[in-house]
């Protein structure tokens, strides 16, 4: 029973991080039609920058606020100068461009911070452990589990009620129609890409104390978030939530119940979903 609960909690905390990444990925895809390979690298940058800020100003919270903003500013530059020229091109070329950006950022991080892994301590309030039955559980992971739904609800409210959220949804539904009624697509695209990057940076900053910060964390998470977005349905927000939870739980339960298969489980799930519902669980069949 305890093992079960620990698995659930581990799955949820990782799932919540995946959710933040996938949310950005799916929004960018839904509106812009671009599957961003570099999204994991933006996540990784968020983690590194928050780590650096925490060292300089020794405040986790300021790092959490500013790291995603810095990542978003970088994303604006990437969108404006690199992505914009390839919107009209074949999807493969967009994928390749972001693949190149990923290689650049991943190695750039290695150049700046070295290949070693860095440890980040959670802030004092959130450090320590919480007793569960006769075991203990890190408070920081519980904080992550609470942050997931909190950010999810804020995003949901933003997309449902705010003017900008509605514009983004409209553009995701029918880009051409949105342009006809006066949405300025270029600015919207930049904003959406920056927003996605901000979410990735936020996820990275939150992930920093959860795991060690190293140059491979972006590459690791991007594939998992691709799977989340694809099985949930590309461009679907509830899909990203459900997909992230499934993948998080699959990871934690797989690690204890089928350690040999754990690495393959997400891919098997991906194949099953794609072959039975090609547009994902929440995707609309064309």
């Amino acid at each position, binding site marked *: 029973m305890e093992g079960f609960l620990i698995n659930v909690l581990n799955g949820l905390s990782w799932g919540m991080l995946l959710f933040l990444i996938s949310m950005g990925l799916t929004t960018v895809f839904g509106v812009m039609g671009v599957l961003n390979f570099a999204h994991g690298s933006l996540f990784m940058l968020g983690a590194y920058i928050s780590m650096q800020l925490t060292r300089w100003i020794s405040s986790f919270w300021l790092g959490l606020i500013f790291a995603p903003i810095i990542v978003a500013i970088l994303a604006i530059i990437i969108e404006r100068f690199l992505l914009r020229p*390839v919107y009209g*091109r074949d999807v493969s070329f967009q994928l*390749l*461009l972001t693949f190149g950006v990923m290689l650049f950022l991943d*190695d750039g991080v290695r150049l700046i911070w070295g290949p070693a892994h860095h440890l980040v301590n959670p802030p004092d309030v959130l450090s320590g452990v919480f007793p569960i039955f006769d075991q203990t559980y890190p408070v920081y992971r519980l904080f992550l589990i609470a942050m997931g739904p909190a950010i999810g609800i804020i995003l949901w409210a933003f997309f449902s009620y705010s003017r900008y959220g509605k514009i983004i949804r409209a553009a995701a539904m029918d880009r051409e129609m949105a342009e006809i009624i006066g949405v300025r697509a270029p600015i919207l695209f930049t904003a959406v890409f920056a927003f996605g990057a901000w979410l990735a940076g936020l996820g990275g900053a939150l992930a920093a104390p959860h795991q060690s910060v190293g140059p491979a964390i972006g590459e690791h998470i991007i594939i998992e978030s691709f799977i989340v977005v*694809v099985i949930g349905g590309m461009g679907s927000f509830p899909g990203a939530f459900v997909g992230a939870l499934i993948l998080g739980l699959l990871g934690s339960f797989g690690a204890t119940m089928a350690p040999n298969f754990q690495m393959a489980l997400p891919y098997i799930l991906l194949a099953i979903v794609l072959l039975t519902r*090609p547009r994902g669980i929440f995707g609309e069949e064309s």
Partner: protein
Amino acid sequence: MVGLFSKNFFVGFLVLILMALAPFFVTTHWVIILTEIIIMSLFAMSFNLLFGYTGLLSFGQAGFFGVGAYVSALTLTHLSSSFWVCLPVGIVGAMLFALVIGWFCVRLDEIYFAILTLGFGMMLFTLAHNWLSVTGGSDGLTIASMPVLSIFGHKIELFNPKFFYWVSLTVVSLGIIFLRQIVKSPFGLLLTATRENSQRVSFVGQNVRTVRLVAFTIAGSLAGMAGVLFALFNRIASPEMLHWSFSGKAVLMTILGGSSVFLGPAVGTAVFFVLEHFITSYTTNWMIFLGAILVILVLAFPQGVLGTLATFFSKLNGGRNSD
């Protein structure tokens, strides 16, 4: 079909002769680099049968490359020490995997195809990484002794880099000639047609899925063929050979050379390795350059090195298309 005495035939023949003579003029160090280039060329060209000709972006091509590598390593340790056994068995192994996995993958296209091939490729990676008793896990399978290759009773020493180079060159050339025949055949035109407009292809009564499955299987088999050579070249079959980032290499080399020209991926591979060789002698952060080069290529030269040159020369020739 290409005319036997056409210009292209002569150019190809000349290049082949020069390649065959290369070991007499360069150091062993460069013979080894050249060997890696020609093996990886075949891998990249097998990928491009799917990408450039059929319009399917596969991120799982390394899976079949790796199957070729592992199956040949297993054959050498358990079955036979002959090159004539391990090469065909490796190819057939990759072919079977490609046939089964392709059967699923060709149902989808565009991004979904890319993601699904990535998924299957990573399943193969996990298999190689975790099936300790058969594949040796993350250590891989070392090839303790090179296979025996005898032609008409004459033994060829494969552990001599020069001989291995010539054997690789022969095998890769045969693979490339085979690919050439495929893309120039009516079936090759059908592949291009499914890339351009798959709906029309089905309107004229062709089964798009079958066409794509055949292409997928051929591409997988040739990747396996390259994988066999690569395992022998490195004396090991290791899980990294199946990882999606290895598939990414094929994508990169193809774009670098140009996906719209037949030999583009081979030229891209050569450029890739030569660049890697020079840049890594100055810095260990070669990926940063690679990323920048890829971004610049996609933005400014989407046709790649050979594609851009071909367009340039055909303009010089007064717009005549020189294939």
